[in-house]
């Protein structure tokens, strides 16, 4: 008879883990956790970090062309925050045992994804308004929900990020509001940006709950606290009124208030487009990764020099 107690021990640990998560206790880095929980978090947090970092590119495109020094300062500060968000999240993922080097490699080889939204181009200044208002607005809805996620370091990163995000959304909305008070050409430009960013923003919440592949473990382990459709609806409900106030039209003829549910109903999302972009065939996928690789490789000598300086200092101090 062979005796193998390992599975029994793991079962006991698993039920202890699940009980504690159900009670609402946070999970901390050195606590025992199921491998699937760890893998799910590494995937989600690193993807979130990559999104913050890649998201700097479409906005960075307008720094040198911002219409005023005020606008330029704001945009720089906003993009710097996004870089910071990436760093908080990389650190949170590292507590799960993956290195930053590995994460960067996964991003650059396409093994890890980032948010689809950043594969769309920023064609006009109004796109900077639309990104702040709609893209950051959608991200905020998601991130507010994640403040209560079960993994401590992820949850703490979300709290910090949410504090910083509200300026992002407001600066974007201010740009849109200003343009809507401008010339007919400026109003048209704002509406055009709205038309291009609205649907991709709705796609940021991911597939409908009925087609969402990873969600059941994520809910049971309280990684995810609200479903994709719940969050999407919350975003739409908030945003419709804001669009009305400044005179923008939401490009969805089927959008209408539903008395019975107390929410807006929206038209069909083009999921074909969503999957096409995820699979690498969006307008900017190649450009985004090529730019990331270039910045990474161009900076290699700085990291090497910093390491060499560290070694030299250590020799000197011994």
């Amino acid at each position, binding site marked *: 008879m062979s005796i193998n107690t390992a599975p029994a021990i793991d079962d006991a640990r698993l039920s202890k883990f699940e009980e504690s998560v159900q009670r609402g206790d946070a999970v901390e880095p*050195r606590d025992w956790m199921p491998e699937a929980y760890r893998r799910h978090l590494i995937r989600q947090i690193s993807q979130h970090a990559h999104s913050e970092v890649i998201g700097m590119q479409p906005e960075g495109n307008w720094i040198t062309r911002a219409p005023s020094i005020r606008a330029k300062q704001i945009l720089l500060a906003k993009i710097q925050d996004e870089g910071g968000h990436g760093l908080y999240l990389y650190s949170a993922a590292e507590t799960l045992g993956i290195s930053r080097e590995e994460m*960067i490699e996964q991003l650059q080889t396409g093994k890890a994804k980032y948010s689809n939204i950043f594969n769309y181009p920023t064609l006009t200044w109004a796109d900077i308004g639309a990104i702040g208002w709609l893209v950051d607005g959608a991200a905020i809805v998601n991130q507010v929900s994640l403040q209560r996620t079960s993994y401590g370091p992820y949850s703490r990163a979300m709290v910090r990020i949410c504090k910083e995000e509200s300026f992002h959304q407001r600066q974007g909305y201010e740009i849109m509001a200003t343009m809507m008070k401008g010339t007919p050409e400026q109003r048209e430009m704002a509406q055009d940006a709205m038309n291009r960013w609205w649907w991709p923003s709705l796609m940021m919440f991911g597939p409908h709950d009925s087609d969402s592949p990873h969600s059941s473990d994520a809910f049971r382990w309280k990684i995810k606290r609200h479903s994709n459709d719940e969050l999407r609806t919350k975003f739409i409900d908030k945003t419709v009124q804001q669009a009305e106030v400044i005179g923008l039209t939401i490009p969805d003829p089927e959008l209408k208030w539903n008395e019975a549910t107390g929410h807006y109903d929206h038209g069909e999302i083009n999921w074909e487009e969503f999957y096409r972009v995820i699979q690498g065939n969006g307008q900017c996928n190649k450009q985004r990764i090529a730019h990331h690789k270039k910045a990474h490789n161009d900076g290699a000598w700085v990291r090497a020099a910093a390491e060499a300086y560290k070694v030299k200092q250590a020799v000197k101090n011994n």
Partner: protein
Amino acid sequence: MATDTQLDLWEVFIQSRNGSHHMHAGSVHASDRKMALQNARDIYTRRGEGSSIWVVPANSIVASNPDDADMFFDPADDKVYRHPTFYVMPEGAKQI
């Protein structure tokens, strides 16, 4: 590609104003202490969140093991007399 490095890991503690504790804020990567302090400032105090920063190499931190937590902390479990509510005060005594 040459072997890449993302530099060393440091933990960051921030005191929001004089008089309060330094609290753990997160981590940074840096190759030396000066870079660690500057990175911590840029990453964690962009909105005046701090008046003082400590950075500590992550591998210098000694931490208790969560698996041993029950045993490790149990000396405190049976000493209720360390709490003021343990004591019976005479009826009528005030401000104690």
